[in-house]
């Protein structure tokens, strides 16, 4: 199931963004602060209605889809780790089943297992550490078995160990056929772990393609306006200034 955006415009945030996303791979959305990354992700998730243009899932407009069907297809993970009530972890993960109208144990257990957090299932949400919370919230998305996983800065506020673990889980989801779209600030993570990068600048696409091309030093210098260079080998690159 392809996810496409056609001439997407949202006042002061996006102007004329068009792209086609293929399932089974990880796409990173990058760009400076205020470039429109989160807006693009929300629009792709069907949560933000564009002023013009449209987002379509396999040709049918997202706006026209019943909210429940859309929710079954697209799992959305926002940046904020908000958990209002001290509910049991398992019931949080079960929320992922809501669009399906069930609380089937099988996908919930599978999601807990995929993120190595079975041992947390009986804990209370507000007793978790930041890294545990991030994994629980991703498990919530996985429990819904969505075809698309859209996550806004899923690595923010995580230490390097948890970052790599989370990226590993997202890669496994992509390998099993899901489309994964991540807003990433860390360009090295995008370079090393995504299959494709879309660089936004001031609401427009500045570069789009394989990470080695789209995150090329010239693109970074043009968009972020800082002198940088990549060091290391493909798959293990690091970004340094100068």
């Amino acid at each position: 199931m392809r996810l496409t955006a056609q001439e997407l415009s949202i006042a002061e945030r996006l102007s004329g963004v068009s792209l086609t996303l293929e399932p089974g791979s990880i796409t990173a959305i990058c760009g400076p602060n205020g470039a429109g990354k989160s807006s693009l992700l929300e629009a792709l998730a069907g949560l933000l209605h564009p002023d013009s243009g449209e987002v379509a899932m396999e040709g049918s407009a997202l706006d026209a889809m019943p909210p429940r069907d859309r929710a079954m297809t697209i799992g959305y993970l926002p940046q904020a780790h908000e958990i209002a009530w001290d509910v049991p972890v398992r019931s949080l993960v079960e929320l992922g089943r809501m669009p399906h109208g069930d609380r089937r144990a099988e996908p919930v257990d599978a999601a807990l297992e995929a993120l190595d957090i079975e041992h947390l299932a009986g804990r209370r949400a507000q007793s978790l550490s930041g890294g545990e919370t991030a994994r629980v919230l991703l498990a919530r998305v996985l429990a819904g078995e969505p075809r698309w996983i859209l996550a806004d800065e899923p690595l923010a506020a995580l230490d390097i160990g948890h970052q790599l673990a989370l990226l590993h889980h997202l890669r496994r989801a992509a390998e099993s056929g899901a489309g994964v779209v991540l807003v990433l600030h860390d360009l090295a993570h995008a370079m090393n772990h995504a299959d494709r990068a879309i660089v936004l600048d001031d609401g427009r696409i500045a570069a789009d393609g394989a990470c080695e091309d789209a995150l090329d030093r010239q693109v970074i210098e043009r968009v972020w306006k800082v002198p940088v260079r990549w060091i290391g080998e493909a798959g293990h690159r690091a970004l340094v200034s100068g």
Partner: protein
Amino acid sequence: MNRATLILATLLLLALPVSLLAGRVWLDPATTPNAAIILAELRLPRAMLAIVVGAGLGAAGAAMQGYLRNPLADPGLFGIAPGAALGAVAALWFGYAISPWLLPAFALVGAGGAMALLAAIAGRTGGIALFTLAGLMVASLAGALTALAISMAPNAFAMSEIVLWLNGALTDRSWREVWLAGPLVMLGIALLWRSGTSLDALTLGEPVARSLGVDTRLLLWLLIAGVGLTVGASVAVAGIIGFVGLIVPHLVRPLTDRRPSQLIVPSALAGALLVLVADSVVRVLPLVTELRLGIALSLLGAPFFLLLLLRMRRGLV
């Protein structure tokens, strides 16, 4: 049915017979003259009304706290109770309260007006922040108009009537009030109960709830209608009874797994229990005139609230 529902339903069933016998004069069904009539026409409707009013306020409080994701939310803050009170005050001001139907009818119109205003302002977008602000504004407008009515009361008698009525009570109520409020409150609780799953999803914030398929506009309408019916009908028959909607969900929450959906029915039961017991206590207290239920519950509620803040402060340090 969860554990909290079971415990609270049992407690309510135990409290009901005691409440029927409790009063300045304790009733002994065997010896008290006219015991059957006193029970059937005075004590039973009053107890039923306490249950109806308490259930409505408790459920509304639980739903509002779930919706606003804030344990300090009280349904009285959001314009519907002050709107209903304004309606009732208008009936008293104009002297229409002579008819037993007009005062509650005016109160329901007031609650309906507040609901309509809330829906008109916030209903189109379904945003929580807009709803909160609109609710606070409707509440202060209704409060100001009520204060205006008191200050310009046509005579001292009307003024004292209004002030007394505003401190809610269940004194001298009959089956008429039970039949008026009962179905409306039940319908309201059913609407709030139906919103439970969406409130659970809101635990993770509004964007996640929407991504899970929650129609936030429909949810807002359900809440306005549910709170409007429960709180509006309660105020219409009993006046302002504060703090029930605030305290009850707090007392019930530790008995549940803290999901908002699991809190609504137990909060209705606990609200019913609290108002039933409180109303029995004010009847038994040896005072010259009966303590108004609304005042009693506020006297109980304010220290409780302070305690709650203290505990939260400790939790935050």
